[in-house]
C-alpha cells in the first residue's frame, strides 16, 4: 500500500519513506515486505524507536511531512495509505480465536478518518507549500504530541528497557517498560512493542496477540494489554487528532 502511494506521488516530488519500528529488527516485517512485488520506496528499520523521541510518534501507522528544506510541515499524525476500511471491517475467518475477534471488533471502532491522509497528501503533491494542509512552524510544534516531564521520563525508561532487552536482561527491561507505560499511558508504541516482546502465543497470530495467553493471565507481566487498554481509553482516543486545515 505504501509502495503504491510512493509510485503515485514520487513523480510529483514526494518520497514515501517507511520506518519499521521493532526492537528485534526487521525479521518480523519480512512477511509484509515480501508481499510487495518490488520495493522502490526507501524502507528503513528503527530498532531503538529513535523516531518516537525525535518526531513524537506515539502509535502506528503515523506519518510526518518534511519539505524540500528539511522543515517539518505536518507533525506526526495517523496515516493510512489507501481508501480501504479498517481491519475491523474485514471478513474474519471462522476459526479465529475469541480474543482476535474481540480485537478486530475494537479495531473497527477506532474513530479515525481513513481518507484524510490520502486527501491531504495528494493536495500537498499538487499545490506544494501553498497546500492548505501545510502548517506554519508554530502550528507544527503545537500540533505535535504533548511532552512534559512524565512523557520525557517515560521515553528514558523505554530506552533503558530496550537496551536491557537487547542485552538479555528481560526482567530488568520489563520494569522499565512498565514505568514507561505508567508515565505515558497515551504512548501506544511503548505499549504495543513491549506487549509484543512479552507474547507467549505461538503461530502467525503471535505478533498481533498483544496480551496474555488465555488461562495464563498470572504470567502476563504488564498492567494492561491491547484489548483492555483500548476498551478503557475508548477507541476514539487511540490516535491523536490531526490538525485540520482552515475552512
Amino acid at each position, binding site marked *: 500500500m505504501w509502495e503504491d502511494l510512493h509510485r503515485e506521488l514520487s513523480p510529483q516530488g514526494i518520497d514515501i*519513506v517507511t520506518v519499521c519500528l521493532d526492537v528485534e529488527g526487521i525479521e518480523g516485517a519480512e512477511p509484509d515486505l515480501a508481499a510487495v512485488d518490488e520495493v522502490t520506496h526507501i524502507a528503513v528499520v528503527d530498532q531503538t524507536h529513535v523516531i518516537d*523521541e*525525535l518526531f513524537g510518534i506515539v502509535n502506528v501507522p503515523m506519518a510526518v511531512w518534511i519539505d524540500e528544506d528539511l522543515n517539518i510541515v505536518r507533525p506526526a499524525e495517523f496515516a493510512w495509505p489507501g481508501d480501504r476500511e479498517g481491519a475491523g471491517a474485514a471478513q474474519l475467518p471462522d476459526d479465529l480465536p475469541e480474543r482476535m475477534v474481540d480485537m478486530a471488533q475494537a479495531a473497527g471502532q477506532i474513530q479515525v478518518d481513513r481518507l484524510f491522509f490520502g486527501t491531504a497528501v495528494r493536495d500537498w503533491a499538487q499545490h506544494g507549500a501553498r497546500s492548505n494542509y501545510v502548517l506554519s512552524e508554530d502550528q507544527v510544534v503545537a500540533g505535535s504530541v504533548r511532552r512534559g516531564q512524565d512523557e520525557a521520563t517515560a521515553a528514558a525508561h523505554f*530506552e*533503558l528497557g530496550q537496551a*536491557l532487552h537487547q542485552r538479555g536482561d528481560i526482567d530488568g527491561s520489563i520494569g522499565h517498560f512498565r514505568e514507561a507505560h505508567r508515565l505515558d499511558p497515551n504512548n501506544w508504541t511503548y505499549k504495543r512493542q513491549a506487549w509484543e516482546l512479552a507474547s507467549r502465543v505461538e503461530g502467525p497470530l503471535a505478533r498481533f496477540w498483544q496480551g496474555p495467553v488465555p488461562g495464563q493471565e498470572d504470567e502476563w507481566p504488564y498492567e494492561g494489554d491491547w484489548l483492555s487498554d483500548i476498551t478503557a481509553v475508548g477507541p476514539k482516543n487511540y490516535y491523536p487528532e490531526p490538525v485540520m486545515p482552515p475552512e
Partner: protein
Amino acid sequence: MLLSDQTVEPGEVFAAAGWEIKPEGACRGPVCVPLGEATTVQAIAQRLGMPLVTSDSHDLAALGPATVSGRALTSAVAPDLELPLVVGDGVWRLADQRGRRTVMVAWAPW
C-alpha cells in the same frame, strides 16, 4: 539517548540529542535555551528539561528528550536522522532528502 559513560563531553552528548552548545546557549534550529552557569551533562540536561534515568543493575543511564516547548517538537526544523536500509545495503540519511518532499511513515509488524 543512552549514556554508558557519564563522563562523556557535554557537547558530544547534546549534539547526539540534536542540541548544539553555543555561547548563547543550547540551540536547536531557531530555538536557543540559555545555559547560564550550567556546564555538566546533568546541569545542561536540567536546563533543557531532559530527565536522566539510571539502571539499577547495569552501568547505564538514559537521557530523555527535552521538554522546553512542552511538546514533542521544539521547532519545525527536522532533526538529523540516519537509519539502516531494509531493502538494499547501507544507511538512509534524512539530510539526503534535501530538495525532495518526504513523508516519513512509522509502521510496525506488531
